[in-house]
């Protein structure tokens, strides 16, 4: 019997394998956002204020301490949690209290959130409180932004204030 049908069948099956690999290595495409959407990313890494004021040690106290440990300020290491609120177009989009990291709660608080919004103009209000000793918010920013479709706007907290990029 001729082997031709066998070879044809093999060629066909190898072809099907190639087709499967070739097709699913790039198709169907994925749409992360609808064509008329944009993304707002809230990403904050910030050390809250120390929770207690530092206390000044007296001269006698310092004298009693070993020489290598004499430091005038006696500070507790614990930091304030960081409260974050985001309103988009006047509606509450996010409310979060980020605890400081680390076993002694002396590390940074971090916040990460994605908001998918329609492209176009939006009113953003971002409020941050990084000091547990005060009520309300000690940092705020309100801004009207216009987002192009596919654009990623990053809300961050850098230096001493809220930034929008």
């Amino acid at each position, binding site marked *: 019997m001729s082997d031709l049908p*066998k070879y044809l*069948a*093999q060629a066909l*099956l*190898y*072809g099907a*394998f*190639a087709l*499967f*690999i*070739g097709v*699913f*290595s*790039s*198709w*169907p*495409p*994925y*749409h*992360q*956002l609808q*064509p008329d959407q944009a*993304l707002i*990313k809230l*990403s904050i*890494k910030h050390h809250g204020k120390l929770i207690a004021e530092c206390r000044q040690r007296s001269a006698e106290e310092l004298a009693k301490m070993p020489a290598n440990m004499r430091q005038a300020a006696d500070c507790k290491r614990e930091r304030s949690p960081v409260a974050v609120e985001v309103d988009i177009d006047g509606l509450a989009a996010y409310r979060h209290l980020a605890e400081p*990291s*680390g076993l002694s709660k002396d*590390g*940074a608080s*971090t916040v*990460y959130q994605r908001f998918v919004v329609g492209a176009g103009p939006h009113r953003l209000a971002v409020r941050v409180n990084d000091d547990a000793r005060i009520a309300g918010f000690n940092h705020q920013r309100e801004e009207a932004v216009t987002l192009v*479709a*596919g*654009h*990623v706007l*990053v809300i*961050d907290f850098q230096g001493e204030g809220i930034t929008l*990029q």
Partner: protein
Amino acid sequence: MKLRATLDSGSRQAYRHLEHGFDAAFDAANPWRHLGALAFLFLCLVLATGTYLYVVIDTSVLGVYRSIGDLDRAPRSLGGLMHSLHRYAADAFMLVTLLHLGRELLLGRYKHFRAFSWLTGVPLLGFAFVSGVVGFWLKWDQLAHFSVVASAEWLDALNLFGVPITRNFLSVATVSDRLFSLFIFVHIGAPLLLIFGLWFHLQRLAAADVFPPLTLTLGSCATLLALSLLAPVASAAAADLSLIPAALAMDWFYLWPHLLMYATSAQTLWALAALLAIALFLLPLLPGAALAAAAAVHPEHCNGCRRCVEDCPFAAIVMVPNPKAKTQLAQVLPELCARCGICAGACPAASASRASGFVTGIDMPEAPLATLHRELQRGLERIGERGVVVFGCGQGAATGQLASAEVAAFSLNCVGMLPPSFVDHALRNGAAGVLVAACRPGGCAFRMGDRWTAERLTGVREPKLRTGFEPQRLRLVRADCGEEETVASALAEFRRALEQPAADNKLSTRMASNV
């Protein structure tokens, strides 16, 4: 339980049909029977092309996109081909690895003596995913950006790292060459771990099928080369962290977990991944049918020849010093023993024609060769001179219903348990012919039974048949479980041929091609 068993056997039956269909086109090079070896082949391709790419491209954040772009602009140059081949071989690697896993799962090959191979296989899948996903990051195009951010968001959901990793990917300025070197380190490190793990994976398998047959190797390489020439891989636009592209050409072999995460949540993906890992690792512990007793050595008849060691498919036999003689002695490691009996078929001491009675150096306690020998003796007396003896495989096509006034049929646990001396014995003690029904090439439930049987009966492997009878009195037929018809018609045809004068030469040629 009943329902599960029915579903199981139904899906196995369906799978066998598929495999048999491929047998018709590929013969012994059937890809379904060499999935592990194919995975290894594609891994080798990926390693070779990856090494080339690593040498020629500029692996800095700013240089990598440009230098891969240079390759893509000449897709049919050596560099361009290497890029496409690396990607397609990586995709093929994942595909056949998943099929390999699925096949072992479907055929129930994950318990008892196979638990080690199964458990060492599971981490390989993890390494393969890590290698592949991180590979996409190295291109530093939009797809890389998407995958990096999705992976970072996934890792951050566990809150293991003090600093969220996502913060590294907010703007291009935050991605440093050092971070990029880490990607490369992981992309090369994970495959090294994979190869290391593969060494364990194959530890318990004797003569592991690591290299596919030559025709399958050439066919697979040619297929990927043709695909690379016809549809070269293209990168997306350069990564711009402030933009999300409207559509991303998605690689569905490696990147689908990202999409699953966005369709659900990072926590859900973690839970699913953990569940899957736990399920895969616990599968071998699932309760199931108990195993029969392991093979047992009869020290007084073991002459230390090592044939059982060489033929055991699962490396379950070792040689130890024989306290009573200068020779060595076989010793079975029961936890590795598959209970196939292939060792008994290999034992040259298992002589069926000894006047002092049947002995063997190694045997299966619950289905000993001595019993088969007795039954064969009785069968030979019953069927007379025109009769035929059929030796079948308990894992393959059932042969029980073939028995008749002139046919004595025996089913062994695995046809590999048949010592060739039993065939000799039957032919010299009155049977007109012997039909041996083995599983299709590569179809042995114990890996090697069909192959060793064919080699023993054709005199390529010890123990060999004694010569001196007409070759047309022995026939080997190949039939898997469910192909009882094939054996029945082979038997009918064999018996017709035996009735004809012995001068019919065509028969002996047919026998040779059958084997």
